[in-house]
């Protein structure tokens, strides 16, 4: 969904409201941001040191080199605050910190956010065992499981956020692309840190590029589901969002469909975008690109994202 920012005089409190150019929806001002996410949103390893570095996160960071969404909001919205809920290791589907659990924590925040950013899914793929069948994606969560887990989080946000808040759900990066980036970065990644640390073995231990692509294709399916559900909630076509919370995503289609470098899920991460710690997570430059893309495709962006990848 392409949203264009138009600042108009606020009705109250001297703040600004934002307008969706397509539907003339007036969104609530971005007074507070929360997020659901995993280690990418925690800035894991972004500066080349193992561990979380939230100051370098695309969503919650404070470092000027990243120019995170929080930094951008803080620069334009007086009194902006944030209360992140992302947790390293979180899946969208499984575990104790999944999307639904993080959404519940967002809903339990004393002051409800009007912007919620979601980036989950990499661990859903990386935590699954390798397949012994002809289908390398056989052990990944089914599309049905993915959809139901996604809805479990979206239902809660639709019910608890102030009307005209916006939930932005970013597409899942293709781990086969991250494999290639790490492979190109150094031999140490492939032969050292990946097997030693057990980094995303479902793909990093897979020598056949066609089988890695099968895993990537399942991620495309997950991203298609994100887009379908975002549309269904945004329009309330499913009856699950009667209060009018906004839902947007960056996903418009897969690389195979001609949408390369149009979303997080289709961006071809290169060796220059990932850290040298685990050779799998975005470095500062990778975080900056995600932030730029998310902003461009969010409610305050103008939709122009091409320069984000320069």
């Amino acid at each position: 969904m392409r949203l264009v920012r138009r600042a108009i005089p606020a009705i109250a409190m001297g703040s600004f409201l934002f307008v969706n150019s397509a539907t003339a929806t007036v969104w609530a001002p971005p007074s507070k941001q929360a997020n659901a996410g995993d280690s990418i949103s925690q800035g894991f390893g972004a500066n080349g040191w193992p561990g979380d570095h939230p100051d370098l996160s695309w969503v919650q960071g404070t470092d000027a080199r990243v120019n995170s969404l929080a930094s951008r909001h803080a620069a334009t919205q007086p009194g902006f605050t944030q209360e992140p809920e992302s947790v390293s290791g979180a899946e969208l589907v499984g575990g104790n910190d999944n999307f639904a659990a993080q959404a519940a924590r967002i809903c339990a925040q004393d002051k409800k956010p009007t912007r919620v950013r979601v980036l989950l899914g990499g661990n859903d793929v990386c935590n699954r065992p390798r397949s012994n069948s002809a289908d390398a994606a056989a052990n990944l969560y089914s599309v049905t499981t993915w959809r139901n887990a996604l809805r479990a989080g979206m239902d809660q946000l639709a019910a608890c956020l102030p009307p005209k808040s916006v939930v932005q759900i970013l597409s899942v990066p293709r781990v086969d692309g991250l494999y290639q980036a790490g492979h190109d970065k150094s031999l140490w990644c492939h032969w050292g840190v990946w097997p030693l640390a057990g980094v995303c073995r479902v793909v990093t231990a897979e020598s056949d590029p066609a089988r890695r692509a099968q895993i990537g294709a399942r991620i495309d399916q997950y991203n298609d589901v994100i887009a379908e559900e975002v549309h269904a909630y945004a329009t309330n076509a499913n009856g699950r969002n009667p209060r009018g919370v906004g839902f947007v995503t960056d996903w418009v289609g897969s690389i195979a469909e001609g949408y390369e470098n149009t979303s997080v899920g289709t961006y071809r991460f290169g060796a220059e975008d990932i850290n040298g710690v685990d050779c799998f997570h975005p470095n500062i430059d990778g975080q900056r690109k995600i932030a730029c893309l998310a902003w461009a495709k969010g409610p305050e962006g103008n939709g122009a994202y091409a320069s984000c990848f320069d």
Partner: protein
Amino acid sequence: MSIGELRIGWSAVLLAGCMSALTGCSVEERAQTSSQTNAVGERTADDPIASPVTPEEILEPRDGRIDDVSQYVATESPHRLFGIELGDGTSPPAAIIADTRTWSTRAYHEGELVGRGMRVARIGEQAVTFETAQGDVVLTPGDTVKLRIVRHKLDVVARPLGKNRFALDTEAARAARDVLPSYERVELFGGPMLKLGEVPVGSLFAEADFREGDLVASVDGAPANEDTLAEIRRALTDGRPSVNIRIYRGGIPLDRTYTAYTTTR
């Protein structure tokens, strides 16, 4: 999603039994169970209210027999079936089930117990069947149903609180199988770590959510060494208020806090 979208079998009987047991729970018993706190006084508002169970409800007693049924309690909360995973054919199919009270979600396999009063009887392509003493419950993906989970008081060693925090029941930790995982020493990210091999089922480490392949990096800030696993065992069982353990799982650091759980039971 409506609760109780049960399709066949004795589900109505099951729910009636659940409600009957719940209403039969005394105020005093509820107060005792709901007064559980951890060492720092935390108690989540949505802790389930426990109710007593009958011997007939218990499909598989702890230690193979029921010496004292009062050691078992049941909690009820809505669970949702996210989906059914058939996998690659070399591993058993799994049902991905979320406890909607906490949204803690895990995979259950055919034959596996859900607590001690319910067993995953069958996982088909379209539905999962739970066996209980009162009859079968059938769920299809997306269904939500209130499940009555029966547990022995020593069954849960580490209750997840989210964000890598666990409430540790020291008494249950002491009762878990006392066998350490195998490990190998590795150097990674500039420091020594212990890479866990097999983590025996039912062992203290398994019950505290350690898995094969986890890298143990430090305990309360002290870097891993040959004594670290024994130190973790001590830390989880000696009653200290809390212990912080850093592990790497899939290369990602998880800074875990286990906070001792005290109870008035």
